[in-house]
């Protein structure tokens, strides 16, 4: 097939052994200290580092390699330090201060029977797909709060879901190690599960999935430590990305004109930037102290933010190759589970494990607002494609769409397909 030809031409054959597909098996073998066996994690023809798979050359020991590693790291730090001439706070002094933000919950979507694990907006700015622990994936029209489609997956813990750019399909996956694509239909009674298509095949749980610029390709990240790019129609693996030493928990595709990179964050505290074409790890950031739960690109594509269990969110500059800002407070001690930027990139919304959402000023580094309302962890948070609102999904089985503004929040008194209560902003 055409994609394999490309890779064969570029990288040549790899001289390692077994035919393991994307997965942990071969990696686990390679990590044992058996210098004679040369099983490595990149046994497939998609190996970007053929040299690394070979055994120790003469005169090299683990110690010398580690020493070399140290010197290289120091050199890199020096280089980066030379370029670091100003802090973000200084540059941001020119930016005007933000007024007070008054966010209110405009819609509460109730209908999931268990924890809401993931959600995604449709490009039409009003539809949402959300997945939950009991295996249900629901497509809502958040504007009218109607449920449009509901699918029951054969697995529990559906941790990843995505809406296709055309709005005609959804993808979801979780503990079944697969990513399944369901084409949506206008017919309400049609059984969506009949047309299901299994696309991705990992060796452990699926933690994140997203469509690329079309319905035809899916990018997935998995607990087995790898991410992969798949062709939807044939289910073929187009490219795999190895480099994390622990579960990959999140990924995000770059919004830039070239659209060639994506960033992934994992349980090994690292956030890696990958090139879609070659499968190589282009940049890596490991300043976090704990698992990275979510990464999101800045709207211009030149930076990304990450949310981690160490209760901080950080902003990383891709062009200067460094971390530029930390969003943290002494009073926030519980991990951040999800982040997203507003349309202009001025605001950073972050959902935390202490049931709150904090809104940060990206440039000045201060917290602008704290939002309550959820009764359990905020597991996922996304701003709508045109930036008019953001939706937060939580382990309290609900999703809340919030926007700024004064005035009373009005609810449908009767009718609709979901009965729901007034908004309650406290714990009881």
């Amino acid at each position, binding site marked *: 097939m055409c*994609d394999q030809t490309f890779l064969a031409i570029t990288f040549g054959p790899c001289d390692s052994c077994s035919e393991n597909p994307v997965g942990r098996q071969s990696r686990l073998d*390679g*990590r*044992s200290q058996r210098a004679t066996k040369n099983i*490595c994690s990149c046994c497939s023809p998609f190996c970007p*580092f053929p040299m690394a798979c070979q055994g120790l050359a003469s005169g090299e020991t*683990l110690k010398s*390699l*580690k020493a070399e*590693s140290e010197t*290289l790291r120091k050199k*890199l730090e020096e*280089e980066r330090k030379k*370029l*670091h001439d100003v802090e973000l706070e200084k*540059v941001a002094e020119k*930016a005007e201060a933000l007024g007070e*933000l008054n966010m209110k919950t*405009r819609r509460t979507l109730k209908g999931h029977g268990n924890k809401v694990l993931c959600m995604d907006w*449709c490009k*039409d700015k*009003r539809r949402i797909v959300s997945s939950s622990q009991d295996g249900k994936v629901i497509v809502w*029209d958040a*504007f009218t709060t109607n449920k449009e489609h509901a699918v029951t997956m054969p697995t529990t813990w559906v941790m990843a879901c995505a809406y296709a750019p*055309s*709005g005609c399909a959804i993808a979801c996956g979780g503990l079944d190690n697969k990513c399944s694509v369901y084409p949506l*239909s*206008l017919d309400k009674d049609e059984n969506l599960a009949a047309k299901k298509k299994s696309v991705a095949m990992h060796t452990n*749980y699926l933690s994140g999935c997203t469509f690329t610029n079309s319905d035809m390709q899916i990018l997935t990240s998995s*607990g087995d*430590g790898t991410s992969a790019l798949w*062709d939807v129609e044939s289910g*073929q693996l187009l490219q795999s990305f190895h480099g994390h*030493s622990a*579960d990959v928990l999140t990924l995000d595709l770059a919004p830039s004109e070239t659209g060639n990179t994506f960033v992934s964050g994992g*349980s*090994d505290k690292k956030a890696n930037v990958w090139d879609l074409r070659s499968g190589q790890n282009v940049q*890596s950031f490991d300043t976090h102290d704990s698992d990275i739960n979510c990464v999101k690109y*800045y709207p211009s594509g030149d*930076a990304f933010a990450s949310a981690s*269990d160490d209760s901080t969110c950080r902003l990383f*500059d891709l*062009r*200067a*190759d460094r971390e530029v800002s930390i969003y943290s407070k002494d*009073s926030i001690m*519980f991990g951040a589970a999800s982040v997203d930027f507003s*349309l*202009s*990139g001025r605001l950073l919304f972050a959902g935390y494990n202490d*049931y709150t959402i904090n809104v940060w000023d990206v*440039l000045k580094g201060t917290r602008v607002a704290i939002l309550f309302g959820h009764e*359990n962890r905020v597991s996922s948070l996304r701003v709508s494609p045109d930036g008019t609102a953001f939706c937060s999904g939580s*382990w*309290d089985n609900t999703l809340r769409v919030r*926007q700024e*503004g004064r005035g009373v929040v*009005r609810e449908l008194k009767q009718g609709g397909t979901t009965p729901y209560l007034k908004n309650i902003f*406290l*714990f009881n």
Partner: protein
Amino acid sequence: MTIRTLRDYGQHYRPRMACLKNVEVFVVEMQDPKSGVKGADQKLNVTIIPHVINGQDILAWIVTKMKVTTEEAQAFGTMLVAYGYIYPLQNHRKLVLVPDSTLYRFQTPYFWPVQKWPAEDIDYAIYLARRNIRKKGMLEPYEQQHYDNLHKWMNPKWDFIVMQATEQYKANKERKKPDRVVLDCQERAYWIVHRPPRRTHSAMDYGLDRLIDPNAEEVLTFDVVRRTNIFLTQALMRSAVKSSMSLTAFVKFVTTHHNHDPFLTTPVPSNPWITDSDEFWQLNSRSVDIPTKLSVERWVLSFWELISDPRGRVDFKLFLKKEHSAENMAFYEAAEEMRWGAASAIPEKSQFIFNTFLKPGAPRWINIDGRTMGLTVKGLVVPHRYVLDAAQTHIFLLMKKDTFYRYLKSPVHKDMQKRALVPAPHVFTDAQLEANVRNRNPGVSPILQWQQEEEEKAAAAVAARPIDVKAMVATNKLDRK
């Protein structure tokens, strides 16, 4: 309760709980006899329970210590109770911080949540058995449920459990009454946190286990280190930009997009989520005749903004048609389709693109330099997804650096700027808002919109095909007389 499910997914490792460390430090400070929360003795039935604190004091202390608002302090206080660092005395099942005279006590560090090991079922079974003996079979309903479950699947160990329970019960009897009461409260609080009653959640619930142990030290083998070295060498070779440059770029981006961000500037006519009127979406849709002024301003910001907005792309294509360079955009779109499209469609797409755009004498021949053309044509012999990358980048840069600026100066664009709408902001009365809520527009399904777009695209493709003069003469359309 950790019921072992039928499918073992191979995940056995608890994720890191970095929060526990910080919270422990905080709680220790809270208990400081001089600067912490003031406690008192409380009489409960006949016994006196030492060191009881009330909700109000806790809240006030958190507010002063952390310098936060009352709401936030209450949220944090509730988290402390939910994790089990503080437990309520009276309503032991409701794990919230109530800021009045409700009584709480600090949990002993022995019962604090620990990263390394989860609360074991066998310990819980022993506790329940002991409680059963003490209460002579009168357990609370949720405890009874747990007890029955454990009894069922821990049956082989039950003798051991009962034995342990009786031993502990006897040992307990030796203690003094006040100590016994306190210990009982503490243990009960511990188990409420780690084995919550049904339909309530436990703050200790962390979701799924991880596959790879995040708390283990990473073992560095030679290939991992070697790979790191290669990566670092490549990183050194890559050029990075000065901080001042990239950070000013961020500030610039934020400032230019400030007016377009609905969170910072109220959108006109109104935010659909607030007023329940979707006119904002209708005015900015793809097929609208006259776009809004805000959209037009956004198109000016950069070429990418122009073609990302579907309405902007339509406008740009109109301009290109007038300039007779529509083939550039068409090629760009075709190349994008190939890059992101299905793998099986690549051979036919590449053939089509070659015939339409690249072949010498092609009907929509694009103007790229000889080297790129040569590379592309050679690559097309064995086509793969990224074979058109070089040509596509060339065309994109051409459009971005040249055509875009001409577009901005063109009469098409200037005319559009003049005609662009500035919709008046909605002013709804309460009654109208209520009506809006009832009549929320269901909108067009994205599936229908997609089908429409596909049909339009097909029609455009047919229209763009080169006119076959011979066929037209044959059908007498072109009358030479």
